[in-house]
């Protein structure tokens, strides 16, 4: 009987509990309905979304007290406490206000979070929504044009191409110029040279981080923000936080997109007949008669008469419309004590080059477990596998040959079906690229796992001890196979050959950290963080080569015809103590002191440890009585900081002097012992002292918000991989010798331009102007460090990456010969290296972006332009395409050339003879004739989205569903006549140095950027 009664009561309660409803309307400050705002009842699994009229309805709410959360991008999140009783229908209308830069938003600043209002340093943040609003192969590409002071230069459109990110300019030459990337607490492995520049491309160490797993990206820019990362923070720090489950019902997000890839530009080369005319003209200009002898052009397997037999479109042969798809599924759920976030990802990305694709499959699991009120455990692990089906590009052939030696009068195949061989005079340009694509197998596979485990213990109230261990594992396998058919034609071997290069990096760290919050009273608040970190990384690998191979090498075993050679291991250790104290007075005055005391095995024995302090302060002026309540100025904060940070991203073995003993290079069959590099026990970090003053503002009730920062960063002990005088016995030597100064200003403005009815228009504009100058190169000359063979040099008083070339004056109207300028500005026909002077540089004067977002009812349109003002591109391809005639094709600009006495032309007379141009050889034709303004403005992203009405979404059991058409890189406006002004080409030699000194502006046969057209469906369940 008792059981029956209880059951009856339960059933009645259950019935009653389903009768409660919360409904209402969400409007903006003007009273206009907000479409697509999210409503969530915390502590339950209940929630919903506003319809086109701003109305929402949440049924089946159990009676009780709740906190209801209303969120909408660009508006301040609203919380409403409610109590609903049995059978009640509660009407809850909410007005949301604009808050483009929420002052209460938590910002990750390294070893903790801090409210945006309290920040005293220069920090930018980007949310996951902004990261995933356009399709990218790698998350850093999505930062472009969105963050002030963060310059993102995308690599080419090829699969797995890395970007170059520069925060407030560049203060390194031979050490890494990229920011430090920290994922959930671990500074990750970020070696762009993991496979050298094989195939004319560097490695992208960020490509296997799934953008969809990222909750937020914080960019720490000034010394106050980065000093806690000590000797590694000088180039800025990018802190990546991955998603975790939020309290509430299970959430399922599914995103799928499909797209097409095309290049942003097609090479502007001349056709067959025009090329032949040019060749003939050069032949005659040189005083020859009769039919041109092609051997003089370096072409030895074709006669002049045979050149009219074929007309091959090599562009068509080598390119395609690439197909892309990206699919992501996340499931998250939080219980009282345990929460779990998991994701699955699969992407297949073909590019516009035939045979080239990057595929990524991955998963992540993040969990939190609260053992009791004092102890909490957090864990996370990810596994991603990136498969890069590679092709040759740039200097290494493939797409590069399309723009050089793949001449239109060459056939793809001979009449007997065999491939036609380019029997020209330079082996680098001899391989038929179609043959290479058809026969050569090449794949690079990266496996990446980033994991962490943390235990947090609240010792007493406000005192927390956190111990965290992280592990970042990366394996890279590079496999290639060339069949005998290919090797015989290239002359490299008579059998099939296969190669396997592998590297394994085990990078782990642990931190022990204490955080203590202490409020003296309600006006004086302290928060202190202190800790210890230790990090260790070991990379080793091998290279295998097999003759008589019939396919890729499938295992790591050595065998009869397979040789295996182990590479030099790269190991480093790092440890430090760090601390930070924040002080808050009256919620108006803020101060911070931070430091890091770092030691690293990279440093020479004479400099094992370094100290990196910083101080900063903030003053919320708008809280002062004279401004409080001001209708025009709603928020105003002044920030200032000064501190020291370092850069220690250089070869861990750089300080060592090595000998090597080997039988492989034996003399007379005996072992030899030989020195491989010079030691430097004084090698140490680069030191940057940075001053920063910033102003955060909000006007007209925060309709316009933003910030302006000015900074001055002075770097000393700049690490240079010096070109030593060869007579020393070595070609290079790492040393701290130089100084660099970066100073400039950056600004971000966000405005809500129109909020009328159901139409909203917001704009975000970011711009950064940086001045860069090398202040010292020690006792060395300009030749101490070079970007490439003969382009950029280190010139005191000029920026990093200064082009150092012999100036071009004009084409002599009488002779058609180029006239150069000597150092004193006098005209000369002779090109001499001694006449080189600074003529430009790779660094832009300013970079930025402007995003306009329009919303009307369920529709939204987002348009992102990014731009670069200033900077130069040196087109090293042009010196051959527009220089001495040879076995290269010519560019269409050659039409403006000297042809007869009296001609005033842009380009000189055609010739086969370098001496006609006063050159020692045709590779030396380096003049500003091929130096171009790199300014551009690009329509980076155009997205048209439509939020399906709730009624439609519910048919698919979804709480929301958005469909979007996304187009990237639709057009670019530029004066640059080459393929694409956005260049981040492969690095050569010292990859870091090449990326700092040359890669951003020196073009050489690289593939252009990618233009994509995509459809995306994003659904939440």
């Amino acid at each position, binding site marked *: 009987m008792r059981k029956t009664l209880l059951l009856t009561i339960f059933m009645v309660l259950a019935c009653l509990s389903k009768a409660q409803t919360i409904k209402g309307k969400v409007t903006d400050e003007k009273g206009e309905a907000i479409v697509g705002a999210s409503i969530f009842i915390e502590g339950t699994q209940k929630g919903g979304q506003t319809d086109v009229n701003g109305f929402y309805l949440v049924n089946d709410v159990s009676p009780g007290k709740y906190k209801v959360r209303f969120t909408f991008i660009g508006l301040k999140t609203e919380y409403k406490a409610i109590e609903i009783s049995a059978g009640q229908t509660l009407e809850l209308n909410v007005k949301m206000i604009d808050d483009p830069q929420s002052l209460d938003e938590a910002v990750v600043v390294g070893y903790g979070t801090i409210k945006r209002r309290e920040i005293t340093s220069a920090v930018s943040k980007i949310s996951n929504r902004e990261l995933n609003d356009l399709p990218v192969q790698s998350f850093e590409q999505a930062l472009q044009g969105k963050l002030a002071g963060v310059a993102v230069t995308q690599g080419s459109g090829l699969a797995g191409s890395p970007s170059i990110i520069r925060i407030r300019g560049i203060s390194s030459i031979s050490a890494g110029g990229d920011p430090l990337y920290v994922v959930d607490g671990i500074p990750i492995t970020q070696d762009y040279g993991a496979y050298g520049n094989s195939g004319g491309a560097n490695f992208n160490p960020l490509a296997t981080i799934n953008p969809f797993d990222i909750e937020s990206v914080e960019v720490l820019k000034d010394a106050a923000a980065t000093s806690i990362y000590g000797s590694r923070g000088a180039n800025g720090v990018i802190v990546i936080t991955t998603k975790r489950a939020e309290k509430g019902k299970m959430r399922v997000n599914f995103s799928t997109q499909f797209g097409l890839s095309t290049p942003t530009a097609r090479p502007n080369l001349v056709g067959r007949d025009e090329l032949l005319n040019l060749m003939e003209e050069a032949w005659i200009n040189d005083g020859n008669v009769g039919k041109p002898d092609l051997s003089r052009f370096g072409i030895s397997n074709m006669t002049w008469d045979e050149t009219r037999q074929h007309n091959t479109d090599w562009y068509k042969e080598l390119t395609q419309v690439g197909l892309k798809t990206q699919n992501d599924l996340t499931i998250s759920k939080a219980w009282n004590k345990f929460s779990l976030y998991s994701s699955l990802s699969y992407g297949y990305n073909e590019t516009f080059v035939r045979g080239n694709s990057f595929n990524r499959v991955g998963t992540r699991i993040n969990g939190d477990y609260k053992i009791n009120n004092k102890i909490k455990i957090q864990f996370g692990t990810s596994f991603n596998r990136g498969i890069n089906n590679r092709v040759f590009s740039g200097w290494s052939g493939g797409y590069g040959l399309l723009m050089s030696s793949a001449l239109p009068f060459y056939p793809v195949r001979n009449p007997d079906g065999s491939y036609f061989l380019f029997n020209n005079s330079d082996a680098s340009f001899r391989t038929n690229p179609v043959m290479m694509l058809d026969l050569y197998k090449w794949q690079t596979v990266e496996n990446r796992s980033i994991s962490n485990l943390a235990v947090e213990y609240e010792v007493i109230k406000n005192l927390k001890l956190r111990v965290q261990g992280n592990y970042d594992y990366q394996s890279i396998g590079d496999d290639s196979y060339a069949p005998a058919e290919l090797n015989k034609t290239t002359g490299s071997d008579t059998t099939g050959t296969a190669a396997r290069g592998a590297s394994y990096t085990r990078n782990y760290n642990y931190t022990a950290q204490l955080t203590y919050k202490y409020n003296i009273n309600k006006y004086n608040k302290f928060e202190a963080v202190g800790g210890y970190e230790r990090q260790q990384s070991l990379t080793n690998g091998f290279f295998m080569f097999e003759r008589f191979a019939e396919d890729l090498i499938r295992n790591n075993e050595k065998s009869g015809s397979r040789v295996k050679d182990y590479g030099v291991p790269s190991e480093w250790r790092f440890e430090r103590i760090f601390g930070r104290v924040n002080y808050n007075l009256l919620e108006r005055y803020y101060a911070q002191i931070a430091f890091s005391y770092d030691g690293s095995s990279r440093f020479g024995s004479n400099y094992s440890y370094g100290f990196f302090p910083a101080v900063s302060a903030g003053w919320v002026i708008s809280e002062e009585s004279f401004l409080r309540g001001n209708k025009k100025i709603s928020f105003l904060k002044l920030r200032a900081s000064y501190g020291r940070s370092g850069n220690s991203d250089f070869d861990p073995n750089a300080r060592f002097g090595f000998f090597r*003993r080997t039988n492989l290079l034996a003399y007379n069959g005996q072992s030899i012992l030989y020195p491989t590099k010079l030691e430097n026990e004084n090698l140490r970090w680069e030191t940057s002292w940075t001053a920063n003053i910033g102003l955060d503002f909000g006007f007209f009730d925060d309709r316009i918000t933003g910030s302006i920062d000015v900074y001055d960063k002075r770097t000393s002990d700049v690490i240079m991989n010096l070109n030593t005088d060869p007579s020393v016995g070595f070609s290079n030597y790492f040393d701290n010798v130089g100084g660099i100064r970066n100073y400039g200003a950056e600004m971000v403005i966000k405005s809500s331009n129109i909020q009328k009815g159901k139409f909203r228009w917001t704009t975000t504009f970011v711009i950064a102007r940086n001045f860069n100058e090398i202040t010292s190169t020690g006792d060395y000359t300009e030749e101490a460090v070079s970007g490439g063979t003969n382009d950029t040099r280190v010139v005191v008083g000029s920026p990093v990456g200064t082009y150092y070339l012999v100036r071009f004056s004009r084409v002599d109207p009488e002779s058609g010969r180029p006239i150069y300028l000597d150092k004193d500005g006098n005209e000369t026909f002779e090109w001499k290296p001694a006449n080189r002077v600074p003529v430009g540089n790779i660094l832009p004067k300013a970079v930025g972006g402007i995003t306009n977002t329009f919303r009307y009812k369920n529709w939204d349109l987002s348009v992102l332009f990014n731009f670069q003002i200033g900077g130069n591109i040196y087109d090293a391809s042009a010196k051959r395409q527009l220089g001495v005639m040879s076995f290269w094709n010519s560019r269409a600009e050659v039409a403006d050339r000297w042809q007869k006495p009296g001609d005033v032309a842009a380009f000189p007379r055609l010739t086969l003879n370098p001496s006609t141009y006063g050159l020692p050889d045709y590779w030396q034709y380096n003049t500003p004739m091929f130096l171009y303004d790199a300014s551009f403005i690009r329509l980076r992203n155009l997205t048209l989205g439509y939020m399906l009405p709730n009624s439609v979404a519910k048919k698919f059991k979804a709480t929301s569903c958005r469909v979007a058409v996304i187009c990237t890189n639709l057009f670019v406006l530029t004066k640059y006549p080459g393929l694409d002004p956005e260049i981040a080409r492969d690095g050569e030699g010292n990859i870091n140095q090449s990326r700092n000194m040359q890669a951003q502006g020196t073009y050489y046969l690289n593939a252009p950027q990618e233009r994509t057209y995509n459809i995306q469906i994003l659904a939440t369940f």
Partner: protein
Amino acid sequence: MNKKYIHVLIMMSTLVLSTVAITSCKKSLEIEPDPSFGIDPDEAIQTPDDMQQLLLSCYDACANMMNGRFQLINDLLSDDVSRPSNNDGNLTGIYNRTSSEFNGEVGGAYSQPYFTIYRVNIMDRYWDNIQLSSVEKDRMQGEARFLRALCHFETVKLWAQPAGYTADNSHLGIIERKRALNEVVLRTSVASNYNFIISDLTEAIQKLPVSNGVYANQMAAKALLGKVYFTMGRYDDALPLLTEVIGAGYALTDSLNRFRRNETESEIIFGFVTTGTPYDINSRSSTFKANYRNDNLGPTDLPIMGLSRELATLLRSDTTDIRRNMVKIINEGEANEFYASTKYNMNDFASPYLTLTDMLLMRAEIYAIKENAGAARADLLPIIKRAYSPSANKELAVNALSGPALLAEIRLQRRLEMHLEGDRITQLKRIGATQPSTVITIRNAPWNCNGMVLQFPASAGTVRGFIFNPTGGCN
């Protein structure tokens, strides 16, 4: 004290103390390089075997330099070779006598001798630390000095005007490296360079054993010193040395081609040996083969390098000269007729550096200059006998020569005998510098025009105060 503060204090202290404890242990940051990849110099060189292996690496580096690379660069400046058929910018730049700071071939070549020189200088740091018998120590030091001298000698020939360009040889030479330090050293005079070379060789002669297998021995050092004196035009100093070497028991081989695999060729006084492996990794002939070899090409395909028309004509002018078979004509009769050489049509071969042929021809020339025709002819005739078939007529003709005609014949035979061995340009410059009455032009350019001397690589200018060679003037 409040319990809360005690907790805070304990935790902070624990963290600080543990940190201090860890960081005070310096070893926590120490990395020991894997010995198979990188060895600290002091650990690397501890035993006599280590020194011997270091010495062998000097041979190795020197052999890489003399695997045809230096010989080719020398010949590109001369009138013995054709313009590179591939129009390669670097080689053509040398051929045009317009090598610049950015000529990759020149830059790469310039660094090579200094690899050896650095290693020799490294050895100097350890003589007192290694337990070596005096005999062994002398041998190693002698070999080291020999190789350092060889490298400086080959370098000064290419990157400086020859001895005799100025009366006191005060014109700029090359950088002499005497210590294994990364220190600033600037160019010194050619006189200084040669003094240093002679000093090294003198010491080598004193210390080297009479017999030393395939490695440098006392006679090799004497032969090189004789060659150095000859190149400088110091014939009186060269003569006794050459005589001693010629009389030391070496014998001309039957074959005209000294470039064979067998390192024990009877006429080789010193050379760089090739020992085969399955992967052909220590062949000392790669640059020769890469540029001249043509037996592996199609019938109309051209090797990169060939003979100049003038030399090919000379080689083929006498039908009794067996050496004419070393000329292979491709595209005969066509506008693009090409004179390939069969001299290096082999898989692997050693690279002889000092040979009896060379010694005989040097001494013959000295005798001719000194108007000792009989002695000159006596040295020339063995060469003639081997080169001509039947040789009787040629011998008769040579025996009839004297004075300038004999001198011309000796120089001609030297050119024919040692073609494509990088010798020609040295001789032309020597004659130009030491025999002012003789006008020497090389492909229409004076022997002493600026471009006839290679330019230093741009990286040499890393050091403030470094003076580059003047350019131009040859075309």
